[in-house]
């Protein structure tokens, strides 16, 4: 098991290397001229040239990339051209905000979707099922940021119950978390329902009933334990979506997280900030994916055996 984790961690290295390579060169091409961004507008050509030489911008791109990667290993990811602040530090300052938003959204999503998915599956083809599924279908069909705008319109503008912009207290988290959470909930409800429907039909459920287990026990002990595997897969697959959803919600609700940081930096062509933030996002996602895979091993003995065998 430990060897499996180590192997996965090793596999992350080429992924991160390639990602950084792509992002680095893309941003070198797409980003603006850093010298003009840093120096005041009335700077002389000589001043510009000096700075360029000093920053190593006249070296070939490959050399610049090597230098960047060397810095990455020691945690030095450069400084923002716009604010002059350390990239890694800025990212780390913003990270808790995104984690808070993503985490609470995930909690909202699970609280709603897992029970609803099971409930609709158990009442398949009744009006309860249909109602639940229609809600879920609407949920997956609307752009998440628009749902955010609508929630803002109702709760902040119309009823004035909740704040809509900024992050000055826990109440500021409610609307963004609901926005991202409801969108996710719709998706996970659909997966939970079909996972549960699939499990209900399995032979081992009949075996359990034939043993004399009660309906409750069959569903929640035998059924859910099996259905959890595809449900966790579904949730695990949505992490990319959590990040995307959070990023958009951060823009809508002016929540100072990573998503907004990236979009603002791209807008300002703040190359080191964008490159750094995206590489760090990539590392974060890889770690989350690994954690999700390890959760499977706890849920499914077949996968656990596979991990151990593979070493």
């Amino acid at each position, binding site marked *: 098991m430990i060897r499996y984790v180590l192997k996965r961690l090793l596999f992350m290295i080429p992924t991160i290397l390639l990602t950084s390579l792509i992002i680095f060169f893309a941003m070198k091409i797409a980003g603006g001229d850093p010298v003009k961004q840093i120096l005041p507008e009335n700077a002389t050509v000589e001043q510009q040239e000096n700075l360029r030489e000093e920053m190593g911008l006249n070296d070939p791109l490959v050399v610049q990339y090597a230098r960047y990667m060397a810095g990455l290993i020691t945690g030095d990811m450069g400084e923002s051209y716009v604010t002059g602040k350390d990239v890694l530090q800025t990212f780390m300052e913003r990270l808790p905000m995104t984690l808070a938003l993503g985490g609470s959204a995930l909690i909202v999503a699970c609280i709603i979707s897992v029970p609803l998915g099971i409930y609709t599956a158990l009442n398949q*083809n009744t009006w309860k099922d249909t109602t639940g599924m229609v809600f879920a279908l609407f949920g997956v069909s609307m752009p998440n940021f628009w749902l955010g705008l609508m929630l803002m319109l109702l709760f902040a503008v119309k009823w004035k119950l909740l704040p809509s912009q900024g992050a000055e207290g826990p109440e500021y988290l409610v609307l963004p978390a609901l926005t991202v959470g409801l969108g996710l909930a719709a998706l996970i409800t659909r997966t939970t329902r079909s996972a549960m429907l699939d499990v209900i039909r*399995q*032979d*081992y459920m*009949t*075996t*359990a*009933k*034939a*043993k*004399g*287990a*009660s*309906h409750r*026990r069959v569903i929640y002990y*035998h059924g859910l*334990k*099996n259905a959890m*595997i595809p449900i966790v897969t579904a949730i695990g697959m949505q992490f990319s979506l959590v990040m995307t959803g959070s990023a958009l919600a951060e823009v809508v609700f002016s929540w100072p997280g990573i998503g907004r940081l990236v979009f603002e930096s791209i807008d300002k062509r703040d190359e080191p900030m964008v490159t750094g933030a995206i590489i760090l996002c990539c590392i974060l996602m890889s770690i989350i994916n690994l954690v999700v895979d390890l959760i499977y091993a706890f*849920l*499914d*003995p*077949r996968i656990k*055996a596979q991990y151990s065998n593979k070493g």
Partner: protein
Amino acid sequence: MSEKILEIKDLVVHFETDDGCVKAINGLTLSVGKEKTLGLVGETGAGKTTTALSILNLVPSPPGVIKGGSIELDGKDVLQMSDKELEHMRGNDVAMIFQDPMTALNPVLTVGEQIAESIMLHEHISMKDAFERAKEMLKMVGIAESRAYDYPHQFSGGMRQRVVIAIALACQPNFLIADEPTTALDVTIQAQVLDLMKELIEKNHMSMLLITHDLGVVAEVCNDVAVMYAGRIVEIGSTEEVFNSTRHPYTEGLFDSLPNLKEQGEELVPIKGMMPDPMRLPEGCTFAPRCPYATEACTQTVPELRKMGGTHFVACHAYDDPSFRLRRNANG
């Protein structure tokens, strides 16, 4: 006649699907004597599994609906039982062995847990004690106790079927339903599993309903045989009676389509045609369209079971004519 542990009378089970009503069981009557083994024989789709599930009142619903009839288990009608009574009965009084051991076990629980669950549910003892008992059960079916901590995917098909048997016998039920317990297994393993079941049944004085399409298995294990066709019993009697003085044309067809070692040169005689569509059963005797002896009368009314002597019953209009004999019997 001896005492009965199971008596099914006029059972009707339909599956009501979007495409139409599937008439799976259409007035089935049979009984199993105490400490006797009844073989239920028929083609795939004859309604054997549905019969088995009906006895536990486990017909999947929807779409399955038990339309009528009664299933008396030791004198108590299963179809009238409350949920509590049903839960108490299942596993404790009646247990079932399923056809496919690859899917009948829960993949995320250890086999020990699965055997122990049954004991824990019925004897109200702690999981820990139940687990110890589960180990004993494993030993009984010939699996090392230490393997109680393993998961189903770590076992071979034959071993899994032993686990399924251990689950079924964990609470020492009086009556066992075995739904094609050996069909999914290799031939060599089939014999092992069958021997094990036979031994355990005799040891525990149990009765059994053995569902199979393998007449060889019936000859080896069963006291009585019931032949099923399109949701009805067409012939029932002791194994001796049914095998040696076959009465129903369908049963004759089943025997004729078996390869016979003694007469290797002879061609097999398959039953022509297919099972009728259970959504559109023919009028009268459902076997009539495939029956070489069929007459006008066969397409009019459904034949009732009639006594042919001893415990032997057959549902066939041909015996309205007292001189009627099947070819098989006429030839020798």
